[in-house]
C-alpha cells in the first residue's frame, strides 16, 4: 500500500512543485504584458514568494529535464532586470514573434489562441524549435475549443519529453478525461497521456492502462493496447505488468482490439508464444473482420506461432520424393542440387522420426483453420495484407496449396513502383523454391521500357529464376529485345541473366554462347565487356569445346578497351592456352608491346598469361616472358612489382630457387572449378518473407526468427479453450457476439456447422470449445493421434453427441407435446404457475394476483402472454436478488445441458413453462397438432390478437389467402430465428396441394427455416404453419415464393422492428446498470404526450409490449408495494429485451410526467434498431 501511495503521490508533488515555478513564469509574463491578468487572486500569491525561494525551487525543480524551461525563466529575469540584454541565441532571432504568440495564447479569445496554435504547429512542422513556448501552450490544455485542444496535444506530445516537469501540469487534465463517461474522450485522454514520454508518470500510465484494459468500451481497450508499447519503450522494467495486461487484452473478443493487442504483444513480448494458445482459434476466426493493419500484424505473428506448433505439411511429399529417388537424380543438374541434398538429409531425419511412429502426416485442424481463414484476405485491397497472407502460405501451406498466392502477388505488380519493388523481391525468393507457382504468369514479368531500372533488374531476376527447358526459348527471345534497350545498366544485367540461364539449362548453353559472342561485336563497349566476362564464366564449364570462341576473343584484344574485359580475355587465353597453342604466344607478344599503357588489372593478367605460357610453351615464350617480367619490375604499382618478382622466382629455375619452383606448374595450372552463377536470392527464405530483414538480406533490429518446424508436434490441446464456469455460461453469448461483430462475412461462417463438411475441422474445434467443453481436451488430442479418416469420424462423433443430446431432450418434449394445442399449453402453464406461486412468498402472490387482475382487465389474451412473461420475470426475481451468483450458476447448468433451443431462462422454476412453449413449437413444426380440429376459435384468438399481416390476398392468390403474424415464441429449431406463424385459408373451390416455399431470396446473413410442406389444403379449409426467419436484426424483408401444385406467388415478409427481439428478465438494478453502459450514441430519448386513453399503467404497458416483444422490468416500488402505499406520482416503466440474432440488449424506459407528458428512452447497442423502435413505440403511445 505505502509504495503504491508513494508512487501515486510522487507525481502530484512534482506537479505542485512545478506549478509554483510555472506560475512564477506566468506571473512574470503577466508583469511584462500590458494587459493585466484577470486572475488577481493568484497573482498576489505569486508575489508572496521571495525571489530566493524561487531560485531555489528552480534549481531543484527544473534541474534535469527542464532545460528549456530554465532558459525561459532566465530570459524573463534578464528582461525584467536589465531590460532585455542578451538572451539565448535562438531567442534573439525571433523574440518578438514568440512574445506575440504568447500574448495570443494568453488571450481569452479562442480564435486568437487557435491562430497562435496554428502558427506554432506550422513551426513544428517545418522543424523549427518552438520549445520556449511550452509554458504558454500547456496552460491551454484544458481549453474548451476542440481544435485548440487538439493542437495543444500535438505540441505537448512533441515537446513534453524535453520539458518533463512542465509537462506534468497537464497530467491532471488527462486523468480527469480518463474518467469521462464518453468513451471517446476516455480514449483520447489515454492516448495523449501515454504519448507524453515523461518517465515520472510511468505509474500513472500503468494504472490508466490497467483500468482502460477492463473498460467496457472496446475502443478504449484498443487505445489501452496502443498505449502498452509506449509505456514499454519508456520503461522496459514494467514488462511483467504489461504482459499481464496483454494477456488480458488478448482474451478480448472484439475485432477492434485484436489487431492492436497483437501489435503490443509483438513489441513487448514476442517470445511469450504461450500466451497465444488460448486465443489462437479466436484470432483465426476474427481475422477477416479486423482492420487491415491489424490483419498484417496478426498474420505475421500467427505464421511464427504455427511454425512452432504444427508439423511440416510437406513431410509426406518429401517422403514420396524419397521413394522416387531415381527421378531426382535426373534433375541433378539443377541449381539447387546441394540444397536438395541438405533437404534430403533433413528429410531423412524426419522420415526416420516419422517411420518410428508409423504415422502418416495429418494436418492439425488448427493449422487448417489458419490456412482457410487467411485465404480470403488475398483479395484485400491492401498490398501489405496480401503479402502477409502470401508469406504465410509460403511458409506454412502444403506445397499443393501454395499456388493460390501467385495470382494475388502478380496482381500487386500493377501497383505503385515501391510496392512492385518489394513484391518482386519476395517473388524472386519464392521462385527459387517454388518455380512452378509463377510459371503461368511468366508474361506478367516481361519488362517495359518505362519501368524504373531497379524494377527491371528485379523482373529480370524473376524471369531468370523461372527459366526452364520449356520456356527458355521465349525468355531468350525476350532477353534479346532487352539487350537493345537504351538503359545500359539494364543491358548489362540482361547479359548476366543470359549467362545464368546458360549455366542452368544445358540445352541452351551453346545458343546463349553464340548469342553472347555476337554481342562481342556490339558497338557499345559496356555490352561487349559484360559479354566477355559472362562468356569467360561459361567457357570455364566446357573449355575444350569452344576453342574457336577463345580464338575469336583473342582477336578482340585489339579492339576492346574496357580493362575488365581485356583482363578476362587474357585470363581465358592463359588458362586454356593448350587449346589455342598458336594464338596464345602471339597475344602475349602484342600485350608485351602495349604493356606500359595497360591498366593495372590487365597488367596482372599479362603477367599471369606470361607465366602460364612459360610453363607450357617455354620454347616460344621464354624471351617474351623475361621481357614482360622486366617491364613489370619497374612498374609504378608495387602489386605488379611484387607479382613479377614472385613469378620470376617461381618459374625461372635458378640455383637459388627453392623447393617451390618444382610445384610451379601445379600452382599456376591447377584445375579451377567452374564458377556457380546463382541467384542473389538463394537462401533468402530463411528470413520470413515480406519482412524488412528479408528485403535487406540482413537481420533488422527486432526481427523474430522464423522457427523451424518441430519434429513432433507439441500438444495441440493447449489451444482448447477450457471453459471454466463463468466463460462456459457465456460461451453461447460469445458465439452471438461474434455474429454481432461480423455481420458481413459471417453469413455461413458462424452457423455453417455440419453443412460445410469440407471445412468442418474447425467446426469440431469450435464445437469442443462451446458444445462439448467438458470433454473438449480429450477429443482434441484424439483427433491429433488418429488418422485423417478418423478426423471426420471424430467430427461425426461430435455431431452425434450433439444430436444425442438434443434427442435426449426430445422424448420428454414429445411426450408432453402430444396433446399440445396452444390452448392446452396455456392451461398447463397456468396450472404450473399456480403450483409455483403457491410455493412462493407472499409478496409474489400479491404480485401474481395483481397481474391476474390486470389479466382479467385485458380483453385480449395477447397481453396476457406479456404479463405471463412479466410474471415469469417477477417469479425469478426473489431467488436471484439475494445471491446473484446463484442465477449465474443456474445458467451454467442450463448451458451444460446445451439447451441451445431455448433462451436462457433466469430461474429453474420457469423451465417447465419454457419447455411447454417450445414443445408447442416443435409440434407446430411437425405439423401434427395444428390440424383443423385443433383450430378452435379459442386457440386462434390469442394469435389473432397478435397483429396479423397479409402475405397473400385471396384475389391475387386465386383463392388462397395467407396471413402471418409473429407468434413471439422462441423458435425451437434455431434460437436466432423469429417465429412467424402463417395462416393459410383456402377460399377457392378446389383443393390446394403441396403448399411449400421455394427460391428464398435473402439479404446476406439472413436465414430461413421453411415451414413444413402442407400436402393438402382442402377447399374452404384453413391451416397453420410456423416458419423461422433469422432477420439478422435488420428489418429487411425476406422474399420467397409460395408454391402450390399449380402456381407460384412472390411474397415477402418484413418484420416490424419490435418483433426482432425477445423479452429478457432484468431486475431494476441490472436494468439501470445495463442502461448506464449504453449511454451516448446508444441512447435515444424522445419527449411525447401520451394519448388520452393511455395514461394508466396498464395501457402503457400493453401498448409498449404490443409494439415490441419486450418484457416489463418490475420496478422497485412494485416489490414492496403493499396496497396501502400509493403508487408513485410519476411512475417509470421499464422494459427489456434482447435482439434475436445478436442478443444485444434493448432497454426501453417510459417516464411519465404531469398531464400525459412523458419521456421515452431507448438504449440499444444497435442504433438502427433503437431509432426504429423509438418511432414505433412513439406511435403506439400517442395514437
Amino acid at each position, binding site marked *: 500500500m505505502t509504495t503504491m501511495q508513494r508512487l501515486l503521490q510522487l507525481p502530484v508533488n512534482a506537479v505542485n512543485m512545478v506549478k509554483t515555478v510555472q506560475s512564477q513564469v506566468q506571473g512574470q509574463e503577466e508583469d511584462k504584458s500590458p494587459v493585466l491578468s484577470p486572475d488577481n487572486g493568484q497573482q498576489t500569491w505569486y508575489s508572496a514568494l521571495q525571489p530566493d525561494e524561487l531560485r531555489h525551487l528552480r534549481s531543484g525543480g527544473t534541474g534535469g529535464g527542464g532545460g528549456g524551461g530554465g532558459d525561459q525563466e532566465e530570459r524573463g529575469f534578464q528582461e525584467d532586470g536589465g531590460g532585455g540584454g542578451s538572451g539565448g541565441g535562438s531567442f534573439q532571432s525571433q523574440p518578438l514573434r514568440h512574445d506575440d504568440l504568447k500574448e495570443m495564447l494568453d488571450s481569452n479569445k479562442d480564435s486568437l489562441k487557435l491562430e497562435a496554435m496554428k502558427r506554432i504547429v506550422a513551426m513544428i512542422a517545418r522543424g523549427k524549435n518552438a520549445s520556449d513556448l511550452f509554458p504558454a501552450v500547456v496552460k491551454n490544455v484544458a481549453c474548451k475549443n476542440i481544435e485548440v485542444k487538439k493542437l495543444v496535444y500535438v505540441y505537448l506530445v512533441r515537446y513534453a519529453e524535453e520539458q518533463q516537469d512542465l509537462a506534468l501540469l497537464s497530467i491532471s487534465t488527462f486523468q480527469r478525461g480518463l474518467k469521462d463517461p464518453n468513451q471517446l474522450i476516455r480514449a483520447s485522454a489515454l492516448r495523449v497521456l501515454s504519448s507524453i514520454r515523461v518517465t515520472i508518470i510511468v505509474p500513472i500510465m500503468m494504472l490508466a492502462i490497467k483500468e482502460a484494459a477492463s473498460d467496457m468500451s472496446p475502443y478504449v481497450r484498443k487505445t489501452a493496447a496502443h498505449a502498452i508499447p509506449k509505456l514499454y519503450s519508456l520503461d522496459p522494467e514494467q514488462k511483467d505488468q504489461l504482459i499481464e495486461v496483454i494477456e488480458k487484452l488478448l482474451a478480448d473478443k472484439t475485432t477492434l482490439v485484436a489487431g492492436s493487442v497483437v501489435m503490443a504483444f509483438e513489441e513487448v513480448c514476442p517470445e511469450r508464444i504461450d500466451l497465444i494458445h488460448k486465443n489462437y482459434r479466436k484470432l483465426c476466426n476474427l481475422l477477416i473482420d479486423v482492420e487491415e493493419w491489424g490483419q498484417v500484424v496478426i498474420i505475421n505473428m500467427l505464421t511464427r506461432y504455427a511454425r512452432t506448433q504444427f508439423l511440416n505439411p510437406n513431410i509426406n511429399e518429401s517422403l514420396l520424393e524419397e521413394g522416387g529417388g531415381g527421378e531426382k537424380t535426373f534433375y541433378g543438374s539443377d541449381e539447387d542440387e546441394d540444397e536438395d541434398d541438405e533437404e534430403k538429409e533433413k528429410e531423412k531425419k524426419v522420415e526416420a522420426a516419422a517411420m518410428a511412429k508409423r504415422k502418416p502426416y495429418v494436418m492439425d485442424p488448427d493449422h487448417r483453420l489458419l490456412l482457410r481463414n487467411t485465404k480470403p484476405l488475398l483479395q484485400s485491397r*491492401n498490398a501489405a495484407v496480401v503479402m502477409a497472407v502470401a508469406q504465410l502460405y509460403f511458409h506454412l501451406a502444403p506445397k499443393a496449396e501454395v499456388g493460390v498466392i501467385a495470382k494475388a502477388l502478380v496482381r500487386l505488380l500493377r501497383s505503385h513502383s515501391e510496392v512492385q519493388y518489394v513484391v518482386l523481391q519476395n517473388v524472386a525468393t519464392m521462385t527459387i523454391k517454388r518455380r512452378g507457382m509463377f510459371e503461368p504468369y511468366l508474361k506478367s514479368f516481361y519488362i517495359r521500357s518505362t519501368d524504373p531500372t531497379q524494377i527491371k533488374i528485379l523482373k529480370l531476376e524473376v524471369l531468370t529464376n523461372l527459366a526452364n527447358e520449356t520456356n527458355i526459348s521465349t525468355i531468350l527471345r525476350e532477353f534479346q529485345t532487352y539487350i537493345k534497350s537504351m538503359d545500359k545498366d539494364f543491358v548489362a544485367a540482361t547479359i548476366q541473366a543470359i549467362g545464368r540461364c546458360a549455366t542452368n539449362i544445358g540445352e541452351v548453353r551453346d545458343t546463349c554462347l553464340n548469342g553472347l559472342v555476337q554481342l562481342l561485336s556490339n558497338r557499345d563497349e559496356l555490352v561487349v565487356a559484360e559479354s566477355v566476362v559472362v562468356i569467360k564464366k561459361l567457357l570455364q564449364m566446357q573449355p575444350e569445346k569452344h576453342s574457336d570462341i577463345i580464338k575469336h576473343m583473342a582477336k578482340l584484344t585489339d579492339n576492346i578497351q574496357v580493362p575488365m574485359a581485356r583482363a578476362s580475355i587474357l585470363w581465358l587465353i592463359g588458362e586454356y592456352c593448350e587449346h589455342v597453342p598458336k594464338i596464345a604466344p602471339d597475344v602475349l607478344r602484342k600485350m608485351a608491346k602495349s604493356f606500359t599503357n595497360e591498366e593495372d588489372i590487365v597488367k596482372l593478367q599479362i603477367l599471369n598469361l606470361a607465366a602460364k605460357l612459360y610453363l607450357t610453351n617455354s620454347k616460344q615464350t621464354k624471351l617474351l616472358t623475361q621481357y614482360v617480367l622486366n617491364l613489370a619490375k619497374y612498374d609504378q604499382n608495387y602489386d605488379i612489382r611484387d607479382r613479377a618478382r614472385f613469378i620470376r622466382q617461381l618459374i625461372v629455375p635458378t640455383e637459388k630457387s627453392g623447393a617451390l619452383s618444382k610445384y610451379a606448374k601445379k600452382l599456376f595450372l591447377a584445375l579451377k572449378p567452374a564458377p556457380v552463377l546463382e541467384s542473389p536470392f538463394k537462401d533468402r527464405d530463411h528470413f520470413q518473407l515480406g*519482412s524488412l530483414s528479408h528485403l535487406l538480406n540482413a537481420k533488422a533490429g527486432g526481427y523474430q526468427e522464423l522457427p523451424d518446424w518441430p519434429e513432433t508436434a507439441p500438444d495441440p490441446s493447449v489451444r482448447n479453450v477450457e471453459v471454466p464456469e463463468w466463460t462456459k455460461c457465456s460461451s453461447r453469448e460469445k458465439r452471438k457476439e461474434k455474429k454481432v461483430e461480423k455481420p458481413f462475412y459471417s453469413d455461413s461462417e458462424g452457423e455453417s456447422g455440419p453443412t460445410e463438411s469440407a471445412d468442418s475441422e474447425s467446426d469440431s474445434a469450435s464445437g469442443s470449445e462451446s458444445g462439448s467443453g467438458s470433454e473438449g481436451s480429450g477429443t482434441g488430442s484424439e483427433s491429433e493421434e488418429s488418422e485423417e479418416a478418423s478426423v471426420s469420424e471424430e467430427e461425426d462423433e461430435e455431431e452425434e453427441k450433439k444430436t444425442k443430446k438434443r434427442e435426449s431432450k426430445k422424448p420428454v418434449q414429445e411426450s408432453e407435446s402430444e396433446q399440445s394445442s396452444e390452448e392446452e399449453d396455456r392451461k398447463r402453464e397456468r396450472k404450473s404457475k399456480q403450483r409455483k406461486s403457491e410455493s412462493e412468498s407472499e409478496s409474489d402472490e400479491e404480485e401474481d394476483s395483481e397481474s391476474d387482475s390486470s389479466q382479467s382487465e385485458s380483453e385480449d389474451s395477447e397481453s396476457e402472454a406479456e404479463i405471463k412473461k412479466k410474471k415469469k420475470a417477477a417469479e425469478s426475481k426473489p431467488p436471484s436478488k439475494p445471491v446473484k451468483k446463484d442465477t449465474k450458476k443456474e445458467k451454467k447448468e442450463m448451458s451444460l445441458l446445451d439447451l441451445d433451443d431455448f433462451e436462457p431462462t433466469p430461474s429453474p422454476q420457469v423451465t417447465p413453462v419454457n419447455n411447454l412453449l417450445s414443445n408447442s413449437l416443435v409440434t407446430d413444426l411437425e405439423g401434427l397438432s395444428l390440424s383443423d380440429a385443433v383450430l378452435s376459435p379459442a386457440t386462434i384468438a390469442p394469435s389473432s390478437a397478435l397483429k396479423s399481416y397479409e402475405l397473400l390476398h385471396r384475389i391475387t392468390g386465386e383463392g388462397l389467402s395467407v396471413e402471418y403474424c409473429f407468434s413471439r415464441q422462441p423458435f425451437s429449431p434455431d434460437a436466432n430465428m423469429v417465429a412467424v406463424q402463417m395462416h393459410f385459408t383456402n377460399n377457392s373451390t378446389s383443393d390446394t396441394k403441396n403448399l411449400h416455399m421455394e427460391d428464398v431470396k435473402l439479404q446476406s446473413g439472413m436465414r430461413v427455416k421453411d415451414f413444413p410442406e402442407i400436402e393438402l389444403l382442402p377447399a374452404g379449409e384453413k391451416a397453420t404453419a410456423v416458419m423461422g426467419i433469422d432477420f439478422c436484426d435488420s428489418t429487411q424483408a425476406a422474399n420467397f415464393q409460395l408454391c402450390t401444385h399449380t402456381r407460384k406467388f412472390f411474397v415477402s415478409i418484413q418484420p416490424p422492428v419490435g418483433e426482432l427481439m425477445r423479452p429478457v428478465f432484468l431486475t431494476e438494478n441490472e436494468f439501470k446498470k445495463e442502461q448506464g453502459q449504453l449511454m451516448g450514441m446508444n441512447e435515444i430519448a424522445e419527449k411525447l404526450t401520451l394519448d388520452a386513453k393511455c395514461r394508466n399503467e396498464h395501457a402503457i404497458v400493453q401498448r409498449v409490449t404490443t409494439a415490441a416483444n419486450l418484457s416489463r422490468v418490475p420496478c422497485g416500488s412494485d416489490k414492496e408495494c403493499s396496497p396501502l402505499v400509493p403508487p408513485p406520482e410519476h411512475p417509470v416503466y421499464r422494459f427489456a429485451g434482447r435482439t434475436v440474432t445478436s442478443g444485444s440488449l434493448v432497454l426501453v424506459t417510459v417516464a411519465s410526467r404531469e398531464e400525459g407528458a412523458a419521456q421515452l428512452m431507448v438504449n440499444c447497442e444497435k*442504433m438502427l434498431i433503437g431509432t426504429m423502435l423509438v418511432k414505433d413505440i412513439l406511435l403506439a403511445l400517442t395514437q
Partner: protein
Amino acid sequence: MIHSLFLINASGDIFLEKHWKSVVSRSVCDYFFEAQERATEPENVPPVIPTPHHYLISVLRHRIYFVAVIQSEVPPLFVIEFLHRVVDTFQDYFGVCTEAAIKDNVVVVYELLEEMLDNGFPLATESNILKELIKPPTILRTMVNTITGSTNVGEQLPTGQLSVVPWRRTGVKYTNNEAYFDVVEEIDAIIDKSGSTITAEIQGVIDACVKLTGMPDLTLSFMNPRLLDDVSFHPCVRFKRWEAERILSFIPPDGNFRLLSYHVSSQNLVAIPVYVKHNITFREGSSQGRFDLTLGPKQTMGKAVESVLVSSQLPRGVLNANLNPSQGTYTFDPVTKLLTWDVGKINPQKLPSLKGTMNLQAGASKPDENPTINIQFKIQQMAISGLKVNRLDMYGEKYKPFKGIKYMTKAGKFQVRT
C-alpha cells in the same frame, strides 16, 4: 512502427516533418540524399535504405518523397502501403498533393497525420472516418473560419471508429440520392515489332461515387462475372456472398471510393483496339533517320478511339526531328529526347500519321537501340473485356436512388516495340 515522417521536395528540401515517437533528427535524411544522388532517375531511389540506426522507407508521388523513418523490423509493404494511403488522403482533402497545397494546409496535414497514426501504428485510415474528425478545407469554409474563428475539426466525436461499418459515416443525408459506378478497364500490352501481341492483360476497376441517404445496402450483379479472374475488394464488400453467388453486396462508404479492382485473365484473348504501322530507321553512315508512324483503329466495336497520345523516347544520338503530322501536334524535347504526339481522335477514314526525318549528330554511328512507342487512348462507353453490369439494387432504405453506370476503356501500359 513508423517513427517519423519527412516530406522532401524535388530540390531536396525537407519541408515537413512529423514525429510520432521521440524526435529523430532530420540529419537522418542525409542517407536518403546520398541514395538520391547515386540514382540516375528520381524513381530509382531504392524504397528501402538502411542506415546505422534507422531504416528509411520512402515513396515518390507527385514529385514529393515521403520518407518514413523506422527503427526495427516491420513489413516494408506495411509502411509503403500506409504512405500511399497518406498521399491518397491528402489528395482527397486538398484536391492535389503538391508541396504548395501541403504547406498551405499544414495544420490540417498535421491533424490528419496525428489521427492516422498512434505511436507509429495506423489508427484511422478510412477516409470517411477522417472526414468526420477533420473536415476537408473548402474555399467557403476557409472564409467562414477566418471570419468566425470556427474550426476544421469536427464537433462530433468519431463514432465511425466504433461502428461495425467503420467505413461509412452515420447520419448521411442527401436530397438527390445518386449512385454512380464507373467501370474503367485498362489494357496493358506489349506489341512486338511485327505487330503481334507478346502479352496483353486487362486490368479493371469499378470506381463508385455513392451519395445515398441513411444506411443503404447495395447489391451489384454482373451479366458475366466469370470474366473476372482475380479481384480485390474494398473492405465493405461481403466476401462470402461473392464466393457463393458472384454478387457484390455491400454497404457503401459515403462519397468516392474504389469498389473493386479486377483482372481479366490473360487466357482470354484480349482485343487490341489500335494498331501501329511504324518505320523508324537509321542508315549507316548517314546522319539522317526516317520516322514514319501511322495509327489505326482495330476491334473497337464501332466506338471511337479518343484522346490518343503517342510518346516515344528517341535514341540519344538524335539531335532533332523534323516531322509532319497529318493531325494533332507533336513536340520533341532535344534534351530528354522525348517525342510526344497529341493525336486526338482517330478518324477511321483518314488515319493519322506522323512522317519525317530525324537528324543525328554528324559523324555519330547508327544507334543500335530501337525506340519503343507508348500509346495512350480512351474509348468511351465500352469495357473491352465485355464485362457488363446486370443490375444494381438497394435494400435497407425506402427511397428510389438514381443509378448510373459508365464504361470506359483506356490504355494502361501499352507499348509497341520497334
